[in-house]
């Protein structure tokens, strides 16, 4: 049975990202993730929050980003929510990494990192709220 273990709300400012990373590392360690898995989840959540702040809120600093951690039997699930512009992955083609590198793209690597650093990554929009759910299993291989 999942239970909400931690909750953090930050203003939509990139200066808050270091705080998010510190919290996620504490939560992951408390949840029993290995150092490598905790660091992977920390980075994936950082990318999700940065996307919310920079793209969903587009530079507005009066938005809010909620970060919630749910402890499950075999995993830690972190959900990042915001009420900025929704991101619908169905409407976006995530370019192949080789293409992005060949074209010297500056943006878009965060999504790849989120995918590679988590065991499960889901996007959902409900009403005005968009969320990204990032799952890291204990002893996961990602």
């Amino acid at each position, binding site marked *: 049975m999942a239970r909400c273990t931690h909750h953090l709300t930050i203003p939509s400012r990139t200066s808050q990202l270091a705080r998010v*990373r510190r919290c996620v590392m504490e939560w992951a360690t408390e949840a029993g993730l290995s150092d490598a898995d905790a660091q992977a989840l920390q980075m994936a959540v*950082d990318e999700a929050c*940065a996307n919310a702040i920079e793209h969903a809120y587009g530079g507005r600093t009066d938005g809010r980003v909620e970060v919630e951690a749910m402890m499950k039997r075999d995993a830690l699930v972190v959900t990042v929510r915001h009420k900025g512009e929704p991101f619908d992955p169905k409407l976006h083609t995530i370019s192949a990494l080789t293409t992005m590198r060949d074209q010297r793209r500056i943006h878009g690597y*965060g999504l790849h*990192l989120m995918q590679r650093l988590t065991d499960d990554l889901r996007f959902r929009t409900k009403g005005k709220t968009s969320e990204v759910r990032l799952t890291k299993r204990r002893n996961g291989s990602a």
Partner: protein
Amino acid sequence: MSNFSVSFRERSTDGLPVHVLDLTGELDAHTAGEFEAALQNCVDAGHTRLVVHGRDLQYISSAGLGVFMAFVESIREAGGDIKIAALQPRVFNVFDLLGFPLLFQIVETEDEAVERFASAESA
């Protein structure tokens, strides 16, 4: 408050200058602008043989990687390069996950990175 800083040093190999940027702290979406400004200052000053020294860089996100990507092409077109040295394993892992070692010379020591400019000249 920013937990990131960049400082500059000048070295040389084969009588030509190589500029070393020492990165310290956490390079993320908040601090990437400082790194971008540092690289822009180098380019504006005509410095295109650059080594980014990452021994004290504790964290990098995609925003930091994007800064490398934003400058590498123009610096190479100007005859220079950005070489990367002494990354901590955690930071190197991020470059590696995205295949950036295919694009950048990433070496273990600053000396090796500086010497690569000399060997590139003589190649």
